[in-house]
């Protein structure tokens, strides 16, 4: 499957450890204030330095990554489920129901995603829950459209005809043939969207519409660190590197998978 795939898998595994075993890794409590050592650079006690309240940056980063990644997972999974229900309903029922649902999807797709997300998050008020909700509202339609397309394509596949000719009823063909053909592209797509959603979350937190302190979150941490760009650049450099790490690990895995499925552009990226 290629070197990139291995790199991606290792990176994601490492990320999973950070996300799900964060409290075990972090050497300090992320909210443990110690004013006497504020704004320290890299030291042996604090491998990534401390922030303006003297909290250990490394511990905060571990928790912050957990927050961002968990939110993106929730957003992707929930909107995928909603999109799946909507999209497959539209495709299977067809006719007027399809027309109607498609118009709804069109309307949701007619908004520039970021503006729409900001509007919802702004009106609801900034919090982790609301940002999750806003992102779900703005992203389910993409999945729905995609699922609908996949179902329609799968419905037309000759092997559906073949199964029908063997006496299969609709229920059987849907369960055994149509849905499995939708799951693969859908899960691939959802996989790609994790990185995308992650970027959206840190962006929104950066402008102050996302997760609120004291919960550590990568985008919000960068936003806070703007104050100290000249005096304590480690405060913005480390969280940024971590975001890039997370997004990169999803990107490289997605990239290698895409190469794997598309043999024409098969090639390996040397790193």
């Amino acid at each position, binding site marked *: 499957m290629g070197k990139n795939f291995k790199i991606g898998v290792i990176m994601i595994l490492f990320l999973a450890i950070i996300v799900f075993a964060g409290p075990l890794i972090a050497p300090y409590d992320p909210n443990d204030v110690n004013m006497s050592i504020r704004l320290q650079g890299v030291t042996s006690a604090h491998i990534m330095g401390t922030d303006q309240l003297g909290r250990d940056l490394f511990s905060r980063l571990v928790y912050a990554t957990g927050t961002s990644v968990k939110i993106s997972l929730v957003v992707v999974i929930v909107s995928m489920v909603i999109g799946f229900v909507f999209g497959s309903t539209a495709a299977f029922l067809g006719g007027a129901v399809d027309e109607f649902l498609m118009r709804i999807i069109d309307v949701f797709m007619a908004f520039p995603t970021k503006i729409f997300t900001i509007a919802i998050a702004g009106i609801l008020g900034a919090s982790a829950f609301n940002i999750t909700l806003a992102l779900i509202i703005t992203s389910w339609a993409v999945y729905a459209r995609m699922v609908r397309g996949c179902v329609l394509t799968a419905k037309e596949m000759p092997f559906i005809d073949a199964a029908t000719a063997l006496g299969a009823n609709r229920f059987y063909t849907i369960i055994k043939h149509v849905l499995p053909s939708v799951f693969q592209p859908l899960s691939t797509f959802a996989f790609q969207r994790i990185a995308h959603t992650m970027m959206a979350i840190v962006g929104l937190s*950066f402008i102050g519409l996302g997760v609120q302190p004291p919960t550590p979150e990568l985008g919000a941490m960068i936003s806070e660190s703007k104050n100290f760009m000249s005096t304590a650049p480690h405060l913005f450099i480390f969280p940024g590197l971590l975001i890039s790490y997370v997004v990169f690990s999803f990107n490289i895995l997605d990239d290698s998978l895409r190469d794997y499925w598309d043999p024409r552009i098969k090639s390996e990226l040397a790193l």
Partner: protein
Amino acid sequence: MIRYIFRRLLYLIPVLILTSFLAYMLVYLSPSSPAQIILQSRYSGDPTQEQINDFNQEYGFDQPILIQYASWLKNAVRGDLGKSLSDGSEVLDDFIYSFKASAELYFSSQLLALIIALPIGVYSAFKANSIFDRISRAYSLVGMSIPDFWLGMLLVYVFSIVLNLLPSFGYTSPQNIILPMLALGLSSSFSLIRLVRTSVLEVLHLNYIRTARSKGLSEGQIMMKHALRNALIPIVTVVGIHLTHFIGGAVAVETMFAWPGLGNFFAKAAGNQDIPVIQGFVLLSAVFFIFANLIIDIICKQLDPRIDYQNEGGKNNG
């Protein structure tokens, strides 16, 4: 062709109506009433019932929702989207002003991205799997993982704080645009390199390129006349869609550089719960977005004669 556009426009009517309705209804997501939100910020104390009533009457919030919506829509069609609650300026004027600022930043950054990405992407595809290709792919994959606002901060750190060469914010002098343009342009160029590479590579594998070789054309001619021309179709589509994303797409960078663009302006309005501004911006950006997508579709049809005007239904891009 004209008929096709007409049909697309006709098809847009229900979408536009539903879109405007949704934009209007956004406000009702809010846990508190508009009167309270606004009066709260206007007077620093609790508004009295009398003040709330006056306010509702003045802004028509005492009417049933559908009537409110109808009158709002009626005014909106006439170009009157109401006034900002925070400073009383016309929403439409605000939109146009920040639209201009966003457009300047975004178009120039996308131009920069194209200038960077086209040669790299094409060369990379042409020399697929060469050292250059590997480096450029790694470069773009890493670049794609960097948030644009963080790239902006790095640029500010290097050029404003350490080197003290360029201004880090604002909208007053020509130098102001350089850093935000670099931040946005670079981060778009990363994915664009990949796109250009993939589309060119895909075209290069097609049979008509082999035909072109067999015809005796030089590699340069093949690249310019056959490969690029065809690879351009997906590139134009994506760049077009990218361009429409300047509505809000650059919000973090705009905030970072205090650029008075749509995203920045809108994020502030959303934070302040400035309802007419939110409604107006959402509606205007949706309308712009829909029509921009229509135009992209039409351009793509111009580029690609294979697309049949007669049989295409409405298609939207997200």
